[in-house]
C-alpha cells in the first residue's frame, strides 16, 4: 500500500498512471487530494490535512491525558492547575482510596468492579448463544412464522432505549426481579443488532455446506454447531466485543433495575458518587481515577480489537 502511495507521489501529473494505481480501489480520496492539480496546491492540501488531524488528535485524546494526569494530582493542584499534564506534587492519594488503602475513606470499588465483570460476562455469553441460534434460524431454517419473528427483531431496532426506562422497571418489579442479578442481566439479552449481525454472517456461508452436512447425516443442531458456527467466527468476535462494550458501559438499565448499593456496577457507583455534586470542585482526582479505572478494560479491548470496532458500524445492517 505504501508502495502505491510512492508511485502516486512520483508521477502526479500522469493521469494514466494514476488511473491504473487507483483502479486497485481501496480508500477513495475525495476532497483533500487532487491528482490533477499543481504540486504546490497538493503540498498545501497536505499541510492543511495534517494540521486538521493534529488538532483533532489533541481534541480527542487530550481530555483523556488530562484525566489520567489529574488522577495523580492533589485536590488543590487539580483545582489550581487543571491543564497541566505534570502533577506537582505527584500524589497517589486518589488511587490509594480506589485501592482501598485509605482507612478513612472507603469506596466499594472492588464490589463495583466485580459486579461489572459478572454482569458483562454473563450478558456477553448469553447474547452469543441467543444471537447465534436466532441468527442461524432466521438465515437458514425454514419454519412457519419466520417472517414474523424477523419483522419483530427489526421492529426492536426502532424502539428508542430511553423510552424503556420506566417500562423495564415495571416489568422487573412485577416479576419480582427488581434488585437482583437476574434483573440486571436478563433484560440485556435483548440484542436485535447482534441477531441481525449473526443472520448476515450465516447468510454469507454457502448453503451447500448445510446440505453436505445433512447428507452426511448430521441433524440441524449438529450442522449448526460443528459445521456452520466455526465459519462465522469473525461475527462471533464482533458480537462478543459489542456486548462487552455495551454492557460494561450500560448505565440507565442498572439505574432503574437496582437500588441496593451492593449491586452497583462501576458506572452506577461513579454516577451516584458524582451526581448532585454540582459545585464539583471536590475530589476530582478521585473521581477521575475511578473514571480512568472504568475505562481501562474497554481501552484494552479496543487496542487489541479496534478493527472489529471500526467495522461494526457497517455490519449492523443499519445502513
Amino acid at each position, binding site marked *: 500500500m505504501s508502495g502505491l502511495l510512492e508511485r502516486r507521489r512520483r508521477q502526479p501529473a500522469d*493521469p494514466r498512471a494514476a488511473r491504473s494505481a487507483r483502479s486497485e480501489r481501496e480508500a477513495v480520496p475525495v476532497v483533500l487530494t487532487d491528482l490533477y492539480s499543481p504540486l504546490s496546491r497538493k503540498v498545501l492540501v497536505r499541510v492543511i490535512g495534517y494540521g486538521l488531524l493534529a488538532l483533532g488528535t489533541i481534541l480527542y485524546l487530550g481530555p483523556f491525558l488530562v484525566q489520567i494526569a489529574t488522577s495523580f494530582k492533589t485536590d488543590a493542584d487539580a483545582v489550581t492547575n487543571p491543564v497541566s499534564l505534570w502533577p506537582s506534587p505527584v500524589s497517589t492519594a486518589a488511587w490509594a482510596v480506589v485501592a482501598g488503602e485509605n482507612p478513612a475513606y472507603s469506596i466499594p470499588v472492588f464490589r463495583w468492579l466485580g459486579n461489572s465483570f459478572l454482569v458483562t460476562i454473563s450478558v456477553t455469553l448469553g447474547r452469543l448463544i441467543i444471537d447465534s441460534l436466532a441468527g442461524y434460524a432466521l438465515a437458514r431454517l425454514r419454519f412457519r412464522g419466520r417472517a414474523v419473528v424477523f419483522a419483530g427483531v427489526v421492529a426492536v431496532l426502532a424502539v428508542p432505549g430511553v423510552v424503556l426506562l420506566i417500562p423495564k422497571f415495571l416489568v422487573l418489579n412485577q416479576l419480582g426481579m427488581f434488585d437482583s442479578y437476574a434483573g440486571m442481566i*436478563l433484560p440485556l439479552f435483548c440484542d436485535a443488532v447482534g441477531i441481525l449481525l449473526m443472520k448476515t454472517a450465516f447468510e454469507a456461508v454457502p448453503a451447500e455446506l448445510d446440505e453436505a452436512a445433512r447428507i452426511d447425516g448430521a441433524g*440441524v443442531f449438529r450442522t449448526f454447531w460443528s459445521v456452520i458456527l466455526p465459519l462465522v467466527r469473525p461475527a462471533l468476535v464482533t458480537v462478543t466485543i459489542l456486548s462487552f462494550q455495551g454492557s460494561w*458501559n450500560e448505565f440507565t438499565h442498572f439505574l432503574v433495575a437496582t437500588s441496593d448499593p451492593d449491586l452497583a456496577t462501576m458506572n452506577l457507583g461513579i454516577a451516584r458518587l458524582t451526581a448532585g455534586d*454540582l459545585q464539583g470542585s471536590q475530589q476530582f482526582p478521585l473521581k477521575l481515577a475511578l473514571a480512568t479505572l*472504568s475505562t481501562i478494560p474497554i481501552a484494552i479491548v479496543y487496542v487489541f480489537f479496534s478493527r472489529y470496532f471500526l467495522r461494526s458500524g457497517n455490519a449492523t445492517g*443499519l445502513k
Partner: protein
Amino acid sequence: MTATVTRDTPAGRTRPVRRRPVSGYRLQERRAGWLFVAPAVIVLVVFLFAPIVMAAWVSLLDWNGQSSPFSGEAEFVGLSNYQSLLADAGLLRGDFMLSVRNTLYYVLFNVTGVVVLSFVLALAVNSYVLRGRSFFRTVFYFPAITSSVAISVLFLFLFQGSGVVNVVLSWVGIDGPTWFTDPRGVLHIVLGWAGVDAAPGALADTTVGGLSLWNWLSGPSVAMCALIALTIWASSGTFMLFFLVGLQDIPVELEEAAAIDGASAWQRFRHLTLLLMRRSIVLVITLALISSWQVFDQVFILSQGAPAKTTLTPAYISYVRSFGDGQFGVGAAVAFVLFAIIIVLTLVQRWVGRERRA
C-alpha cells in the same frame, strides 16, 4: 435456561425416514427453527414488548409504584396524565415545555455540529495523501467506545468555572463562563450585546404551551452548550464511520471523469461527493436526531436539569417524576410522548429517503 433449549434439539432429533429424507429433515428443521429462535423471542417479548404494553397501561393510572399496577389499587385516570403534560396549565406542563425547548435547541446544535464535524473527520481519514489514516480513525473513534458516565465525569472537570476549557479560552483572551451554573440562553446573550436586554412586549405576552415566545427563543443555555459539546465530541467518531462507509462506496470512475472534464476539487466536492453522500447524510442526521431526543445519562450526572431547568430533558423528567416523586403514571406518559416524537422523526426520515431514491 438457554443451554437446555439448545441441547433439546439433538435429543429430539427425528431420524430421517430413508425413503423421504427431505421431508423428514424439513420437519426437524421446522421444530428446530422455533427452538432456535425461542430464547430470543422470549427475551424480546418479556423484556421489550411486554414492558411497552405495561407502560401504556400505567400511563393511564395514578400509580405510585408500590403495589401491583394490575391489582386495582391504583386509580384509573384515563388520559389525564397526558392532559396535565400537554394541555393543563401547571408545573408539569411548564416543566415539559421547558424540556421540549431545551431539547429542540440541543438537537439543533448537536445534530448540526456532529454532522459537520464527523463529515470533516471522515474526509480527513479517507484522504490518501495523508499517512497514518488508520491511526487517526482509531483515535477519533476512541471517545465513542468509552462510557457516557466516565465521559460525563471528565467533562464536569473540564468545564468547571476555573477548569481546563476556561483556562484554554483565557489564553486567547476570552473570559469563559461558569458553564454548569450559567442558565442564560445563548440567543438572549447575543441579543443583550445588541442592546435587547428585556423581552419586547409582543414576545413576552404571547405564550405557546404556557411558555412565552421570549423564553422559547432563548437558545440553549450556557450549561446546555457544555452538554452539546460533550455529545458532539463523544458521538462524532461513530458518525465518522458511517460517512467513511459512504465515501468508500463512491465509484472512482465518476470522480475521475469529473476531474478529466476539468472540475476543480471544490466543484467535485460540491456537485459530486455531497450529491452521492446524500443518503449517508440523511442517515446520520436521522440517527443523531433520534439519539439527541433521548439524552439522559449526561443530564443525570452533570446537571440534573439545573441551572434554572435549562438542561431539563423529557427523558430526565420521565425518570425524576417516576423514581423521585413516585408518579409512575406521569413518567410513563412522558415516555410515550417521547416515543411518539421519535417515531414521527423516523417516519419523516423514511419519507425523505424515499424522495431521494425516486
